[in-house]
């Protein structure tokens, strides 16, 4: 039985697409057949982040409207086995996503895939609601910043009231917190909310902490999911998050700034 994972946040620009690409790639590397679906109709970007923008022929909306088959629209990743991308339509609007249509496509994907990752658009409109409606698991991507935390809490409310599992009174959607763009040095200086601050407020289990990292921009520049950059802190942190998602217990890393030398501490330099 396929597991449907939604990567959501409410707020834009917190790292949903980066996370979808990284987690999808990580699951495929672990041997699971995985598809990542872009739900951001009109503003697709997953294709760019995963480096397959020039191979898009048909899209998610074409499949829903039965203008193309799933096999025609699915793009097989060139780097990673077991990994597929279903791009969003760039020309239609969000109303092209109907609950019935999305449900049929997800059912068909569930026959052959182990994991279906739904990359949600920002906001709480139709696209975001469709992305989370069918989810079994939610990865709530949050930055340690007031507006992002507040929006994440709002999204948690929607998961608990408007998802299929909530409507059918099934077991609730499994919620995970993924804290991204974390800067331990600023946390130590009292300038940024800490992991435990955000955990206190949102009260959901922590899947991982991704440090603010130059590797993320470099990865998106080249269209390579950052998890493939094994040498980078962000890549390793995403790797840990994937292993935790698969049930492994790993200690959280990258929570503390590198120790400063005596003179640096004494003089307060960076």
């Amino acid at each position, binding site marked *: 039985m396929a597991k449907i994972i939604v990567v959501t946040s409410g707020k834009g620009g917190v790292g949903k697409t980066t996370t979808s690409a990284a987690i999808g790639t990580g699951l495929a590397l672990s041997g699971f057949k995985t598809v990542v679906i872009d739900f951001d109709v009109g503003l697709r970007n997953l294709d760019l982040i995963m480096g397959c923008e020039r191979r898009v022929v048909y899209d998610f909306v074409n499949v829903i409207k039965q203008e193309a088959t799933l096999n025609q629209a699915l793009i097989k990743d060139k780097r990673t086995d077991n990994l597929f991308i279903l791009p969003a339509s760039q020309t239609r609007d969000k109303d092209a996503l109907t609950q019935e249509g999305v449900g049929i496509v997800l059912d068909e994907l569930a026959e052959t895939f182990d994991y279906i990752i739904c990359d949600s658009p920002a906001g709480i409109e139709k696209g975001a609601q469709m992305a989370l409606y069918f989810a079994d698991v939610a990865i709530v991507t949050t930055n340690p910043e007031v507006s992002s935390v507040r929006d994440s*809490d709002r999204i948690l409310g929607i998961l608990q009231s408007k998802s299929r599992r909530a409507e059918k009174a099934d077991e609730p959607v499994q919620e995970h917190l993924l804290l991204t763009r974390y800067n331990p040095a600023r946390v130590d200086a009292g300038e940024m909310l800490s992991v435990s601050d955000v955990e206190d*407020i949102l009260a959901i289990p922590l899947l991982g902490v991704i440090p603010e990292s130059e590797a993320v921009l470099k990865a998106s520049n080249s269209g390579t999911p950052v998890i493939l950059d094994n040498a980078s802190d962000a890549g390793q942190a995403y790797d840990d998050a994937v292993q935790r998602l698969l049930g492994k217990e790993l200690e959280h890393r990258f929570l503390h700034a590198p120790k400063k030398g005596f003179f640096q501490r004494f003089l307060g330099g960076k």
Partner: protein
Amino acid sequence: MSFFDYFRSKAQPTSAELAKERLQIIVAHERGARANPDYLPQMQQEIIAVIKKYIAIDQDQVSVQLDSNDDCSVLEVNVTLPD
């Protein structure tokens, strides 16, 4: 923290502490509102309008609250009448 920071007074909260405090308040408030049914705000307004027709009161002298227990909901309307 640098050597010179030890001389600064510790009275002021850091900006992160301020952020956490503000978030806790707004999130608690919004969670409370989320639990209420959609019609509650409008009903509140209408109840206040009816009371206002007969008594000169301010908006903030009326509170309408819905509390739900396991098997029953209680609608509580509190009006502070002017002397």
